[in-house]
């Protein structure tokens, strides 16, 4: 009896779940999955479902293949103009890096009169920085920034100490 109630509750919850059409941009095609997915699922879940749908060849117009959507983004479009809720999995378009580094360490700054040093960040994250690049130190001064190699700073410091 208890199981029946729980199952019924699950059915009600499931029927109330907001479902969306999954659309993927790949190889110059815009493929639509025949299966709907929860509109409010996490980006990670949506990318996983998209990956499975592509590898399983269930999206018409897109050849079955192994695909990595790590550098894709998820866009949710609420129902409008007679169209249902839609979830798009599409490539990201961002560029840049130094101003968007994951900050692992903030360094105190001695302020100099007339120089608007806003902050200094040290990025040690091997994923976010250039794959072949060194650990970076970004110095943001006013609206401009400069990125230098951490080992260069360390070498300069060592030389200064030894002088």
């Amino acid at each position, binding site marked *: 009896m208890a199981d029946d109630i729980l199952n019924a509750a699950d059915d009600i919850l499931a029927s109330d779940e907001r479902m969306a059409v999954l659309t993927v*941009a790949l190889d*110059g095609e815009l493929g639509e999955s025949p299966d709907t997915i929860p509109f409010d699922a996490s980006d990670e879940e949506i990318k996983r479902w998209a990956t499975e749908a592509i590898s399983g060849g269930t999206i018409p117009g897109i050849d079955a293949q192994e695909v990595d959507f790590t*550098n894709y983004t998820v866009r949710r479009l609420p129902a409008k103009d007679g169209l249902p809720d839609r979830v798009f999995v*599409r490539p990201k*378009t*961002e560029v840049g890096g130094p101003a968007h580094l994951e900050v692992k360490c903030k360094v105190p700054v001695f302020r100099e009169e007339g120089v608007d040093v806003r902050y200094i960040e040290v990025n040690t994250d091997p994923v976010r920085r*250039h*794959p072949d690049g060194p650990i970076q130190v970004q110095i943001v001064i006013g*609206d401009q*920034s400069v990125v230098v190699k951490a080992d260069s700073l360390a070498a300069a410091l060592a030389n200064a100490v030894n002088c």
Partner: protein
Amino acid sequence: MAVLETIVVFDLNGKAIYWHTPNDRSAGYVPDSDDLWDFLWENRHRVGGYAHTHPGYGGVRPSGIDLTTFDAIEKGLGKHLLWPILSFDKMVCVVRNPLFDKGGAKWTLAGPLTVEFDWIDELRRLSGSEDSPPP
């Protein structure tokens, strides 16, 4: 004018077809954009490349974020593009390396181009070059 990274999308003849100057861009970053993606998608048959600035002077190289974005957009559009990156006095053009499967790097720099870009000065101006004199 503040120094800001800026993007221009150009067609197969190298002519500018879309200027991307969102208010939330900064000196070192242009965030993801639905508008930019929509333009790239709707014009995918005539898009030849996507150029952006690294405001400042001196040599330029793509960041890790740049390269993963190049890779994703080419995957989505199903075509290879030219990816120029400009400082206020230098420019490189990044392309996918056709020898990648032979052990080369995934991306490489294009050699001399046969096309002339007429958007270079404007892209640098929109990135703040006029208020950022050479060192």
